[in-house]
């Protein structure tokens, strides 16, 4: 298994309610961003609506929408929802 550390921001952090980050275990053969999102949705079903509007960044670079990328345990994943307040 590979552990992926995901930094959480704004609404995602609030809804998941586990602090600054979560760690998601992925089977070594399934280490992609789409699978990561699938696992997060399964473990935290309450985040589903918010997650669909989020941007995913790997090592401080945003992924394109619908892009599926291979990730490893050394990658820093960040889940960033839009913030609209002011």
């Amino acid at each position: 298994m590979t552990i992926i550390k995901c930094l959480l921001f704004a609404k995602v952090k609030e809804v998941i309610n586990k602090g600054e980050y979560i760690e998601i275990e992925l089977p070594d053969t399934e280490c992609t961003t789409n699978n990561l999102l699938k696992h997060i949705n399964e473990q935290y079903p309450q985040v589903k609506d918010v997650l669909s509007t989020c941007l995913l960044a790997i090592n401080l670079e945003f992924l394109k929408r619908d892009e599926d990328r291979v990730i490893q345990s050394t990658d820093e994943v960040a889940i960033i929802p839009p913030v609209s307040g002011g």
Partner: protein
Amino acid sequence: MQDSSNIASYTQNHSLDNKEIERYGRQLITPDIGVQGQMLLKAAKVLIVGAGGLGCPVALYLAAAGVGMLGIVDYDTVEIGNLHRQIGHRESSTGVPKCESLAAQIKELNSLVETKTFNTVFTSDTAIDIIKQFDIVVDASDNVATRYLVSDACVLTKKPLVSGSALKWEGQVTVYNYNNGPCYRCLFPVPPPAETVTRCSDGGVLGPIVGVIGSLQALETIKIINNNPQNGVLSGRLMIYDGLAAVFRTVRIRSKQASCQVCGDNPTITQLIDYTQFCRSNYSESAGKVEDRVEKEKILTVDQYNDILKSSTKHILLDVRPKNQFEICSLPNSFNIPIEDIDKEDSIEKINVWVKDDQLPVYLLCRRGNKSQDAVESICKKIDSKFHSQLKHIKDGLLGWAESIDPSFPIY
């Protein structure tokens, strides 16, 4: 003593007068600004959408820096609850339109700056005509619908957009539609579901957080005006500030999206649309009255609850606000189980004791009567259906209580 008309022989290549040189001295000697930068600032016209937590520092810093013309759009009036973060307003401005209040502060700070105020809701009908009068737009708004409207309007009028947002302890800032960079829709093509959006009035926000983000917006605006090729404008990158952890992160955004509906290769949005419909929310942060989502049988008005209190009918009053809000103020004899914990095992166990063993009605309460509806539904999923009729939510919540029953109840 020489005559002061000799100024022209002392200053060449620019038309800054002695007062301006004195006022902007520290700025003029800053590398990469100089007299040329100051002249550009003086000639610049910047529109600020929103005169709130972000708009205040943006306006004050740009005014102080000598931006020639500042436009301010805001339909709202100053309230005392704005002042902990909206530092461009004063106690004496309570009830005054925010754009007028902020413009007055700008005048006091720097009388050389011209202001144009728009005391109106920024909508699809008004946006283009207003934006056209300016060179750069700053999004200092507080709601999703306005953010999409401002971004689309900037793409359609080809204006750079300096966008900032903040909530609680966090903020985001970036520049859209600059030098072929991405727009807001390139990043967020689909608006978030309305029910997932937290407003500052529900989630809270700190003054220094909007202060940091607003200051960064002012700085990016100055860099855009200054137009220095080495100026590193925050375009194609999103800066995220976590004030609680004291961390800034700058995330690279892939360039403009070819598939973007408004700035892409084949745009399908060529004029402004109805953004309230698109986002299923208003051009406003204020929440207004909450609509009923639960059946009529599960609704209790504040007047009905007041009658129950007067008749001393036994019941349980369950307040589902977060603990820190419950600590500010609460109705007498109420219990607090925050909405996040309401469907947890020990909470349901407690509720079962009330409805089953004690055979008491349970009235659910929150600030506005929104989350209390969710609470009724969550609890119904977890307890036997024969007890469902004992659960009701109090419509309009504590704000309704303060409005209709007891105006001395604290409002926050």
